[in-house]
């Protein structure tokens, strides 16, 4: 991982929620949501590992023959 990626990861994985809010991270992230692709446009394509077996899953394989519900989240 390069230096720029390390910085991006450190900002993305903030250690303190109050600092994240104090720095306007929540507002910036909401702006990212509204700037993201709109309904009717093509969904961004990625390949991600599946947790239970590590298999590489291509998102377009999941929406090829039926609609795909994608929920994003964490513990909270």
């Amino acid at each position, binding site marked *: *991982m390069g230096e720029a*990626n390390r910085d*991006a*990861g450190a900002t*993305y*994985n*903030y*250690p*303190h*929620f*109050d*600092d*994240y*809010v*104090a720095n306007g991270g929540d507002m910036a*992230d*909401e702006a*990212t*949501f*509204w*700037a*993201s*692709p*709109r*309904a*009717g*446009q*093509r*969904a*961004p*394509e*990625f390949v*991600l*590992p*599946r*947790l*239970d077996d590590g298999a590489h*899953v291509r*998102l*377009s394989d*999941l*929406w*090829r*023959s*039926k*609609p*795909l*519900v*994608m*929920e*994003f*989240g*964490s*513990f*909270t």
Partner: protein
Amino acid sequence: MFIYTREAHPGETVPHHHSFERKLASAKLLAEEAGIGRDILVDNLDGTVHRAYGLMPNMTWVIARGGRIAYKANWTSAANVEAFLIRFLDARGKHPPGTTPVMYETQQAEFRYPDRERFMQHLLRNGPRAVAEFEKAQKLWAQRGAT
């Protein structure tokens, strides 16, 4: 399908991700504790997929067959997603003879009713620091609202 992103409220027990191994361990813990039966995909450490889809902590997107975005919400409501899917699939499948369905876009506000007690339990699961930092953030939001 569920995409594990970053810990929105890191704490002593479930900390922020400083390595992909840490992220995988937290994802496994979540799968066990929350009993998520769907496939869980894990985003990379930098959150590349999360960034592309808009960085909100609890959001849901529906992608129509073939790859066009059918629905995006900056908060997950299972009831809302289900109602949308029923309506969307019905409209797509039951168009009058001789017509072709044409997709159009709407944007509408919805309401949610946070279960504060349940949320605080989740914060506490991540660690007491997650609770304290959320309370500090609430004061920051109040200050924002006052200016």
